[in-house]
């Protein structure tokens, strides 16, 4: 029995000539939240579909809770749940009907199935919508019923595929609360997200995935530290002064300097925060008007950029991501 909740070696999935997942190695500790971070089409969904036994790997091995996902798919299925753009609920049925159906399929008798459905709807704040068809639910309600459907029998491990894509901030917070409650109860959570702050907020460890490969892995602080100790951001009042500011930043910090698309924000990485006060003096002396000056850890956006060489924006839509109903951005 592996000490890891999930362990994969060289996992591969090929669609035609697209190597959607191209040799992924993961080791995921039990009882934690593990984030799989990457842009659209990076291979996140394909990876967790293989782990949830919905897709057969073309190469490599994967064990989930000690069971091989191919040879012992049934044992895996009886201990995990999947929620996401794919594993969904029936839009034509009501909230209650969906949950009762799933409870019946899991072996509850009629009465117990009804009771469990009512309990879950209540806990997820969906009692009022219990008898409405799912297609009339809002995005946030939809995501909650999806998750409720996954914990009719609370699983030991839950896959959440982009649980908050397209949600407003309040609904997103509610989903985050559910995730935290799951982990507090001992459930292992593997979530995929294209949102860096979501991974930052929820995940104990993060794997950054791009073009089907894991390109970095660690805690969010480790990932940030790998990029540089600190990130300095300077915003000038007048874009005509950004040239001067850029020059001063290079002089003071010696490294590479980035001017962002707004034309007035300049950022740079620094390994030595002690040089920063002198820079501030220099800027003052040259008469550069500063509206923002901050020193902090790099954001995961910057980490992503540093790791992949491209920003964390959606790449071209891939076949296996195209069914997402409401992609934000």
């Amino acid at each position, binding site marked *: 029995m592996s000490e890891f909740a999930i362990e994969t070696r060289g996992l591969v999935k090929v669609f035609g000539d697209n190597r959607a997942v191209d040799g992924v190695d993961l080791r995921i500790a039990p009882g934690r939240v593990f984030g799989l971070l990457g842009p659209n089409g990076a291979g996140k969904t394909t990876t967790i579909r293989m782990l949830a*036994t*919905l897709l057969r790997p073309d190469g490599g091995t994967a064990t989930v809770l000690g069971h091989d996902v191919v040879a012992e798919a049934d044992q895996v*299925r009886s201990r*995990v*749940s*999947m929620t*996401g753009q*794919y*594993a*969904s*609920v*029936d839009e*034509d*049925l*009501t909230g209650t*009907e969906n949950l009762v*159906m799933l409870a019946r*399929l*899991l*072996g*509850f*008798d009629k009465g117990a199935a009804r009771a469990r459905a009512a*309990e*879950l709807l*209540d*806990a*997820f*704040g969906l009692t*009022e*919508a219990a008898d409405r068809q799912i297609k009339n639910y*809002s*995005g*946030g*309600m*939809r995501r*909650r019923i999806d998750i409720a459907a996954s*914990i009719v*029998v*609370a699983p*030991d491990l839950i896959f959440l595929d982009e649980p*908050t894509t*397209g*949600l*407003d901030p309040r*609904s997103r917070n*509610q989903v985050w*609360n*559910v995730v935290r409650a799951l982990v*507090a*109860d001992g459930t292992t959570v593997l979530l995929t997200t294209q*949102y*860096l*702050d*979501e991974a930052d907020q929820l995940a104990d460890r993060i794997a950054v995935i791009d073009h089907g490969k894991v390109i970095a892995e660690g805690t969010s602080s480790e990932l940030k530290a790998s990029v540089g100790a600190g990130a300095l951001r300077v915003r000038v009042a007048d874009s005509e002064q950004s040239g001067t500011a850029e020059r001063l930043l290079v002089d003071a910090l010696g490294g590479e300097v980035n001017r962002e698309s707004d034309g007035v924000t300049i950022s740079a990485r620094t390994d030595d925060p002690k040089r920063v006060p002198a820079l501030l003096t220099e800027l003052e002396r040259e008469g550069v008007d500063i509206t923002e000056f901050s020193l902090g850890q790099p954001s995961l*956006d910057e980490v992503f950029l540093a790791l992949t060489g491209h920003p*964390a924006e959606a790449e071209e839509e891939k076949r296996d991501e195209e*069914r997402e109903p*409401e992609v*934000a*951005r």
Partner: protein
Amino acid sequence: MSTAAAAEPAVDETPGVLDDDKLKVAIGKRERPARPGAVAASLTFGWRAMLKIKHVPEQLFDVTMFPIMFTLLFTYLFGGALEGSPTQYIQVLAPGILVQTVVFITMYAGMGLNNDIKKGVFDRFRSLPIWRPAPMVGLLLGDAVRFVLASLVVLVLSLIIGFRPDGGVLGVVAGIALTIVFAFSISWIWTLLGLVMRTPEAVLNTSMTVLFPLIFASNIFVDPDTMPGWLESVVNLNPITHLTSAVRGLMGTGAETSDLIWVFASAAVLIAIFAPLTMRRYSRL
């Protein structure tokens, strides 16, 4: 720096409060009852099919309105020309229209399946520890209800406009039963298409392309003796022709054994080929 700014925030209409304590209790329930057997799981999916009919009654249009339309149209349009009078024609046409109606609505099986896959519902089912074919069997159970309903619509209407089957109640029931057996076997072609093709529309178009010639190049509407020789030979090889003859026989004065053998043999062949292909494709989706 948040990249999480949603383009179109979906606003909840209900204030839906998440109660952390209730959530904790609900999440804490891990006892798993004994898993249901194959029959129980299939029946649950059958129940789902019934619920869908309840919520989307429009989908019954094709099993009610179309048979009514076809029966009336063909009877009164062609009856006089083909058999001398509509009343005479309906004696021949009724069993044929029954076959046509039921066989036509089999193609919705593939469409429904494809829709489920597209919407993600099937992945939920596939990730459950249940008897694997259960969702498919449940769909077919739902279809059985539609088949029976459509058969009753055709039968009642035909009786009203003058169909008088010599075979009596027993013969009529046997005829309907035989039609449904054949319908189930042909359904497997569409379930396979439903799994393989990309959109429900593609599934529908493909099944139409197969079904139209199959149904019209048969003896349902016209006696094959009146056709050119080459077409007559084709029609006589068509399993739909033998099904129609068998149903006419059962509802009339008795079916030819050769027709029954044809029907059962073609049903067996269809199932032997397409059921395993469907299940194989299903488990490897």
